[in-house]
């Protein structure tokens, strides 16, 4: 049994509690700042509980003209990036799992891609996008492509293990049953790797949703949510910025909750007792 016997249980419980508190406190403060006047956020000593509630922060955010377009663009970019990077990452992972020679080069490529300082490739990438007519595109496709590229190592590594775990004999059996290679992949491998594929969709969606640097650089006028929040934080007040951050948090939480049944047994599987 992973993690040892009954003796480890109290310790594990304590660690779990710390992890939950660590994750929950910033979100709590964010909510608190979003629904209280600015003065409370800067009070010293700080209040842990809100004293005065106000809807003005949220109201000002929802009245913001750019919110709808930024939210929509962020969703489009994140969905496109998740779809592209999961399709390509899944194919790369499958190739690495099935071809010995590709495994090493693939792994090396994926690792190097993760090690590259992104800001160093930003300039050449930007010129490529300008030439391709995808710079600051109203559909966000240029940013989506960059996010997809950024996420491919993540999606490939997330699905790689699932493909390795499928015995080659199952594919051979399906081939002998008369299936084409593509059919084998779609009918035998994809269904068995669906948990990992769902996990990679979520991870790449969040990665894109959250990505700031390229979004700031590329979507100069057609902004997505992160740059919008950045401008709001820099030039605006804490209260409305927190409210905007809450709006940004919502879809990410929604995606995770929606895919939770799959994630449960897939990527973030808790040890079974």
């Amino acid at each position, binding site marked *: 049994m992973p993690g040892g016997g009954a003796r480890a249980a109290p310790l594990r419980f304590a660690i779990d509690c710390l992890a939950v508190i660590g994750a929950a406190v910033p979100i709590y403060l964010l909510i608190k700042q979003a629904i209280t006047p600015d003065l409370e956020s800067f009070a010293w000593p700080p209040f842990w509980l809100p004293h005065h509630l106000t809807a003005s922060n949220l109201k000002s955010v929802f009245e913001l003209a750019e919110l709808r377009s930024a939210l929509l663009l962020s969703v489009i970019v994140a969905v496109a990036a998740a779809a592209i990077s999961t399709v390509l990452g899944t194919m790369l992972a499958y190739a690495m799992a099935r071809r010995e020679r590709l495994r090493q080069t693939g792994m090396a490529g994926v690792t190097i891609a993760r090690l590259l300082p992104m800001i160093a490739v930003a300039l050449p990438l930007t010129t490529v996008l300008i030439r391709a007519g995808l710079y600051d595109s109203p559909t966000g496709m240029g940013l989506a492509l960059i996010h997809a590229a950024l996420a491919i190592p993540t999606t490939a590594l997330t699905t790689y293990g699932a493909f390795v775990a499928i015995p080659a004999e*199952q594919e*051979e059996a399906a081939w*002998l049953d*008369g*299936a084409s290679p593509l059919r084998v992949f779609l009918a035998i491998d994809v*269904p*068995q790797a669906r948990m990992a594929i769902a996990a990679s969709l979520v991870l790449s969606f969040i990665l894109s949703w959250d990505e700031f640097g390229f979004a700031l650089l590329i979507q100069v006028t057609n902004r997505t949510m992160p740059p919008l929040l950045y401008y709001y934080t820099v030039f605006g007040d804490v209260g409305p910025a927190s409210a905007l951050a809450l709006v940004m948090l919502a879809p990410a939480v929604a995606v995770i909750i929606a895919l939770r049944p799959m994630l449960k047994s897939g990527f973030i599987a808790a040890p079974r007792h």
Partner: protein
Amino acid sequence: MAELEIYKLSRRFKSGGGVSDVSLTIEPGRLFVLVGPSGCGKSTLLRLIAGLESPDSGEIRFGEAGNADRRDLIAMVFQNYALYPHMSAFDNIAFALRLRHLSRPEIRRRVAEAAELAALHIDLSRRPAELSGGERQRVALARALVRRPRVILMDEPLSSLDAPLRSHLRIELKEFQRRTGRTVIYVTHDQFEALTLADDLAVMRAGTVEQVGAPDDVYQRPANVFVATFMGNPLMNIVRCRLPNASVSAPARSSEPALEIGGKLAMAMPFGLSGEVLLGIRPEDLTYKSSSDCAAFEATFTRVEFVGPGYLAYATVAGQELTALLDQPIEPGRTRWLYAPRRALHFFDPVSNRRIG
């Protein structure tokens, strides 16, 4: 017409292994077993027949079927059955039919027919993980059968099971083959499985076929020392010995460690064998009882093991090791005469290792 003719088939791997220059003829409706130690190329040969590997040279001809798609002629049962774990038993069996776009009623009918032939009487909506080892085997058999192949290939389907289930399923496999009348090519490393299952068997070593024949024939007349020692358990004894001249009935003597072969053996020998030969004797053929036409060995016992059906006694005879399966125990250190009848003696050429009598 033969079901399958393999002609000078070769496939070598960089890492070693594979098959070289194998020719075999497999008759329809027979259970043909490929047996040999691991790495002998038996699985490669099966995969070549399946079309999962392509040969470097040589060909495989399917008798009457001619040039039909290989995948319509053969089906394969894998070592761990390779059932599709995310599909129900029904969907596993129906997979090939759905790929061929058969109608739903036709699929239902053929799945039921295959399940019946494979003696699969379970709720087919269950998944492989919910089935017992025996049920999984039957699902795999039904899946292989549902396409109505001419030849079913089986790659060590019993090797990952525990002993009682293995012997039960071995009998079931044999019955399945009789009932369906399909040609089955079966790969195993287990000589006992090969002997009990096969109508015909081919013993393989290092990528080549050493002997082809009926199981009793191969067991009783092994073509060479390798086949002699590979088939049968406990292992056949192989001892170097010097035979008397055919014309002389008295035992010959030699300075090097050799065996005396007594009695009238020299006269009973075919071809008038003489000189240095390798003598093979199965441990179960050695007894305390002498008869008119037998070889005699003066054996000094070193060790005795109780093996159930008898006592496996280890002895030295003229400096060479010999094991005998005896029905009574014997004290280590004692010396007694052991006898083997003429029909139980196998002679091999000491250079080529081939059978000479």
